[in-house]
């Protein structure tokens, strides 16, 4: 009796535990909104024979997106799948809406653990599932594999839709040889920094916009006129007004030299007036650059004068502070990574006259070209279907618009000039990150941008100047121990140094010593060695 009870109980426990895993998902997912069968992706092959359809059952393609803000996608996904059925694709689409905060962990754990339930991953030069690195580690399927050229078979449309410049930028020496391991996102690939000037406030202060020498680009930061304007503002608006918004990761780059190195340790020394020069850059430590020190000293001066909000030096608070100031127009000078047409949008959103004098020329670098893209996981069981889906998405305007904008009539309305107007409330529950939406040039432009927006945008992209190192990616593997240490050193110092919250006279030498002790020289030497090899090819 006792034994039976014992056995029964332990069985119950085990079932209770494992039962959770095997039974529950099925019952829970039966009511899943994302139509057909979202959870069946990993098991789709087992499930296939049970289907009574005479034709091949549709294959589920699961895509992990970055930066989304989506809380209700039921209707949109249904519409997308209806469109996919209309196109006879044999594909069921299932999105996973990664957010800024969880994408990195989700993407890397899924890839690292060989999760076959996600077929397509957003990837780029700045997320943790870094395009080059993960292609090298063999985690992305090669799309132009000579043995099985998926791109040729299923992706001809998108191959034509996206400029060759971007495809070339996506060639990497990956797990199956040098080739294309992802589909480039087609968006703004020329990177340009700009000042973001609150001209309304300038007017209130009686400062003429043109009296500040904007043509000097980043050097404006050091001019007397720039400082004077802030001093006047401080006098007029009082203590709690901070005229200068310093985005710690952007402003120093903008002023002390732009670069595209993902480790953010190196300085390529591009000439701001002509980024094509030097033709063969010699890399140095970004923090040894005299321009950098000059920037820090000035930032410290402004900080001590009370021009910079102290909250800016902490990652947790900087965003709150900057956004509050920006949306309310409570600033004078700010920095932006400029995208074409943003001045109009920003002015409209903030209810001020915002001007965006550019700094230098728009540059095209490996980093900016690899700014967004989609790769197919080697663990995906449906690589063909995944490429097919990407191809449709990059070429079918209706499909792309559904995915990026939602439903017409619910999330947006179409205007007569083929632009769209968003319903602000509905858009709150369905807001994917537009720059991560594949080929954004087949989307209808927003009303504030105007109907000719994409043509102007393309022209802007083409004005971008390619740097000499376009196509080069620094492989940090040989110096990964140093880079690991250096990145923490960097994290320790930059936010407070860049905003001027600490004194560079004492902190900068300490910072530099620590960089040296942790092997910055090795990293610089390795990078220069790789650049030599790059040019030798």
């Amino acid at each position: 009796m006792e034994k039976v009870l014992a056995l029964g109980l332990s069985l119950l426990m085990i079932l209770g535990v494992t039962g959770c895993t095997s039974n529950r998902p099925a019952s829970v997912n039966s009511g899943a909104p994302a139509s057909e069968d979202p959870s069946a992706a990993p098991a789709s092959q087992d499930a296939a024979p049970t289907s009574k359809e005479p034709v091949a059952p549709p294959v589920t393609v699961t895509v992990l997106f970055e930066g989304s803000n989506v809380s209700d996608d039921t209707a949109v996904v249904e519409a997308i799948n209806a469109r996919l059925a209309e196109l006879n694709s044999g594909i069921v689409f299932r999105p996973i809406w990664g957010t800024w905060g969880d994408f990195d962990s989700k993407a890397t754990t899924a890839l690292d653990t060989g999760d076959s339930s996600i077929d397509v991953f957003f990837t780029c030069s700045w997320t943790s599932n870094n395009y080059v690195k993960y292609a090298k580690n063999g985690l992305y399927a090669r799309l132009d594999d000579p043995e099985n050229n998926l791109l040729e078979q299923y992706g001809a449309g998108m191959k034509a839709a996206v400029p060759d410049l971007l495809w070339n930028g996506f060639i990497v020496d990956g797990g199956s040889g040098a080739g294309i391991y992802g589909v480039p996102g087609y968006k703004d690939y020329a990177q340009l920094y700009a000042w973001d000037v609150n001209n309304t406030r300038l007017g209130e202060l009686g400062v003429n916009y043109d009296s500040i020498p904007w043509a000097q680009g980043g050097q404006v930061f050091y001019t007397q006129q720039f400082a004077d304007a802030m001093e006047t503002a401080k006098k007029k608006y009082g203590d709690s007004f901070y005229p200068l918004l310093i985005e710690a990761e952007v402003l120093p780059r903008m002023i002390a030299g732009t670069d595209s190195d993902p480790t953010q340790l190196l300085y390529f020394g591009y000439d701001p007036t002509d980024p094509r020069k030097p033709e063969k850059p010699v890399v140095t430590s970004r923090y040894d650059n005299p321009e950098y020190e000059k920037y820090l000293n000035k930032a410290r001066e402004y900080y001590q004068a009370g021009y910079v909000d102290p909250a800016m030096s902490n990652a947790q608070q900087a965003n709150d502070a900057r956004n509050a100031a920006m949306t309310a127009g409570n600033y004078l000078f700010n920095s932006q990574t400029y995208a074409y047409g943003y001045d109009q949008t920003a002015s409209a959103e903030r209810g001020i006259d915002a001007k965006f004098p550019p700094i230098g020329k728009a540059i095209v670098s490996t980093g900016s070209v690899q700014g967004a893209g989609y790769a197919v996981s080697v663990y995906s069981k449906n690589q063909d279907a995944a490429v097919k889906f990407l191809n449709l998405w990059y070429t079918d305007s209706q499909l792309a618009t559904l995915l990026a904008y939602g439903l017409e009539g619910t999330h947006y309305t179409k205007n007569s000039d083929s632009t769209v107007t968003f319903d602000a409330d509905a858009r709150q529950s369905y807001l994917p990150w537009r720059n991560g939406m594949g080929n954004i040039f087949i989307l209808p432009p927003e009303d504030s941008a105007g109907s000719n927006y994409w043509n102007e945008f393309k022209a802007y992209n083409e004005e971008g100047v390619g740097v000499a190192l376009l196509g080069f990616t620094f492989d940090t593997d040989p110096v990964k121990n140093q880079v690991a240490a250096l990145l923490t050193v960097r994290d320790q110092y930059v936010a407070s140094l860049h905003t001027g919250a600490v004194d560079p006279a004492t902190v900068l030498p300490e910072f530099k010593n620590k960089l040296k002790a942790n092997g910055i020289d090795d990293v610089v030497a390795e990078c220069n060695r790789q650049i030599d090899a790059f040019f030798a090819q």
Partner: protein
Amino acid sequence: MDTIIVKTGTNVKRRRAARLNSVSLPASILINLGLVSFALCCIIPFIFVVIISFTAKASIEANGYSFFPSAWSADAYNVAFQLGRQLWTSYLNSFLITILGTVFSVLICVLYSYGLYRTDFRYRTFFAFFSFFTMMFGGGLVPTVMVCKQLLNLNNNYAALIVPLLVSPFNFIVMRTFFKSSVPEEIIESSSIDGSGEYRTLFQIVAPIAKPGIATIALMNALAYWNEWYLSLLYINDSKYIPLQYLLMMMQRNIEFIVKNAGMLGTEATRMTQNMPTSSLRMALCVFIVVPIAFAYPFFQRYIVAGLTVGSVKG
């Protein structure tokens, strides 16, 4: 009554002894003073955050965070309610995961540690080391997730939020200690002679005696589940499973990420940050997270208190 504060089984005799054995008045004052000040320190920060979450923006701008704001407002909560369905779904998930997880984990813990406690159990040392070894050696995050996802199908379901936290060797040891210090072995022997089966002995005789321990472990596990967010990050892709704690964590991580990668993201992302929750909303969410536990705890405590009767043996 005196020596055992939380004792329920009082009788006249013991009460008399207690009175005889109480501390002197000055000592009592000192003790109370110490405890009062510490107890206040424990609760004040929470009250402060509640106040802040109800403070009007203007008041914060003028006086900063203050215990006595000049103007009140429920704006942060209005914004929180705009999260709408997600807020309540997550709330519900948190409850579901916590309750299921606690029940199963306590059951497993009691069974396992009971075996460890039984000195006459042949494989006692083996199982002790078997659990203990895992406290010291593990495969690391990636292999564990690999096994959970692929072998156990803990992928995008509630089980993924429950199973990985079911067992804690640390709790086995604590529970065993509770058994050891509160259940005399004679009880086991005598009930065995009475013909009571092992399971009956455990659940009808030993478990009631060890209630304080079980309640403590239950509370610990409930907390672990309630405060968990990392599992969702690893295993969940669908927002209908995510718990409340994860919502808060994501707001924070979203912001951190954007700030760190601002240079790469472009203006599109900058525009999106404008919709992100500010710190007062996050404080409101803290209140959402804390309030249920604050209310659930007295219930647990009553349980612990009711359980802290040591009468069973000597009764």
